[in-house]
């Protein structure tokens, strides 16, 4: 897992946890889930992406995951 943000600062414990949730949601999005889970995981991932991107932890787009 990433240990620095986009400008090279070490991640705080909270940032590590946020990034962990984000990565877990991304992993779930890649799985063949029932509609109820798939749609809600994508919705959650879109919001988690906004948090980790605004905090400068990652920068990427998620079109390939349908998000």
């Amino acid at each position, binding site marked *: 897992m990433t240990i620095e943000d*986009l*400008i*090279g600062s070490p991640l705080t414990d909270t940032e590590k946890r946020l990034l962990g949730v984000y990565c877990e949601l991304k992993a779930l999005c890649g799985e063949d889930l029932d509609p109820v889970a798939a749609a809600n995981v*994508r*919705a959650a*991932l*879109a*919001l988690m*992406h*906004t948090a980790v*991107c*605004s*905090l*400068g932890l990652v*920068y*990427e*787009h*998620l*079109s390939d995951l*349908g*998000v």
Partner: protein
Amino acid sequence: MGSDSPYWNPKTETLDRERLEALQLAKLRRQCDWAAARSPWYKRAFAQSGFSPDQLRSLADLRRIEPLTRSDWMASQAEHPPYGELPTIDGAGAIRVHTTSGTTGQGPLRALDSRKDWAWIAEMWCYALWGCGVRPPDTAYVAFGYGSFIGFWGLHYAVEKVGVLNVPGGAQSTEARVRQIVDFEATVVASTPTYALRLAQEAHSLGLDLRESAVERVILSGEPAGSIPVTKALIEEQWGAKAFDTAGMTEIGTIMVFECAHQPGGTHIIEDHFIEEVLDPDSLAPVGYGERGERVVTSFGRGAIPLLRYRTADLVCRVPAARCSCGRGFDIYEGGILGRADDMKLVRGTNVYPRAIEAVVREHLEVDEFQTRITRDGIRDEITLLVELKPGWDSSRWDRLADDLHRELGLAFEGLNFRIECARAGELPRFELKAKRTVDLRDVPMGAAR
């Protein structure tokens, strides 16, 4: 800082300039990689200009990318309907499409967005709402039509994200909106500046005094008037509330600037999500702090439509972040959006900006509505200000008002001779979204347009 932070995103809003630019460069490299890989438009444009994202070693290298214009986007849409070649996804990969309001007369642009992009669109409004002090348990009234124009859609979602009670004011008459604002005890109202004045006018005719309502903040967007001091003061006086300016555009999907609670006389640029250049519109050379130029925006938000160096035609004057005492590292557009390069009218050799006319006219509280008409009489241009007076105003004072307006507009516009005419009550159009108060009839056959 935690939940009592005055900033929505304390980590990035308080970065110093060096670290802020390092963040922008990191995002820019990735956004350019994405555009080069996924957008047919950028793939071709980069190849034609010899640009490669790995040439981005500093923010100055951004200028290696050719600016994108609205005409480019429109032409691409026409050649590859319905969305053109800018998008990285097609309609099947998106969840929403919005269009521009089409006020430039070229027809609408169509903007696709993904689920992630919509989360980001709302996020930009959160910077503004939080920054001007909106918090639970506020109640927000969104005085907006909720159509295909993107307008306040992003604010609608941001209000809910912040945790504020949202009263969507779509599909309502102006009277019904005024009554709902009062009945729901809204503490925040979002509207265009023009419509904020229209709502106040309607309240007055209903015998309601908005100064006695619960409204504490009016969030303005959609027109430059939100930062015209006299218009803003008029809104604040009529609502008994503080007014906060924001500005955005459909092409980026959301707002890129907002006025913070310290109200420094301008709007902060959300610089962790945008690079805003201010360029001379003719030479495209950068202009310095304190100089007027055209906004050219690079956005990090949208993945569906990467926007790199988009020429906005917005005229701005950028000043350092230190101009404000709020502690943000985000620079400021002094006076907000000062106007649009394509709004400027040349009348007898004088540049006439609608915003500057409004700044003069709104000084006169007896003016209810106004319109500027530009006509051609033979080879001579004429400019006429039509003025509709507030109901009940003493019309015997018209001559004095007309003289004052004539003199003040002449002083503001290099001695240009404005004709001042009195319009009948209700003759001039009212607006819910972007007001269009300047009508140029010089190239229009008589009787073909108003």
